[in-house]
């Protein structure tokens, strides 16, 4: 179990790094504060539902925002 956990944690770190590298900060910085904070939370933690709820957007609009920010990587 600990090997699987380690592998999953490593995977999450790698995906977060990809999101950080791909992120279009020019776009992200134009977003309203609440949505911007939610996108940053998604970049760092990949927690889709929590980030979406924080954004105040419905799921489809939030994912569209992630696409535009080039961080829709799961």
């Amino acid at each position, binding site marked *: 179990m600990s090997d699987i956990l380690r592998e999953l944690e490593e995977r*999450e770190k790698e*995906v977060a790094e*990809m999101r950080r590298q791909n992120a279009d900060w020019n776009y992200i910085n134009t977003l309203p504060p609440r949505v911007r904070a939610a996108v940053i939370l998604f970049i760092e933690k990949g927690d889709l539902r929590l980030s979406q709820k924080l954004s105040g957007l419905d*799921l489809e*609009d939030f994912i569209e925002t992630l*696409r535009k920010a080039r961080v829709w990587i799961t």
Partner: protein
Amino acid sequence: MSTNAIADTSFLIDWAKYSKRDLLFKIFDTVWLPEAVLNELKSENTVTWVVENLSRGRMALFPELTYYREEALRLMELSSKYPVRRLDYPEAYCIAVASDRGYIVLSENGAAYTAQFLYARAKVWRALEVLLELAIRNLISKEEVYKYEEETLHSFPRKDLERIGL
């Protein structure tokens, strides 16, 4: 392999943008949609595709049942014991149904994907696994993954692509 799947919103929103989206039904006879998923679909593109397939009988509504609701809550509690992303209710409900009925869960939610390796019996496929299955059946080439990424603006981790030989 089961010919039934249960899909969450994150999968449908993405998959509906793919030009070869109907290939999904070459793998699954029925894609079940929990009631809550329908309420989350907003864009014309996604709604049109879902309604079309509901009317053709390739998609079907899965009701909210007390038994699976309880199981979903149990899975959510279980997920909080692991130092990875926690399950939320919509994905937990899909996993609860799929574990019991032998369906495959379709989800782009990382917590659902992780659950299958730790505490959930159900298999969880992202679009990547669906595309891979289509490639195995010679319905597309593996390189179609790149087209999917382009059309949906959804990227997959490079290591996952390396693992399938891309």
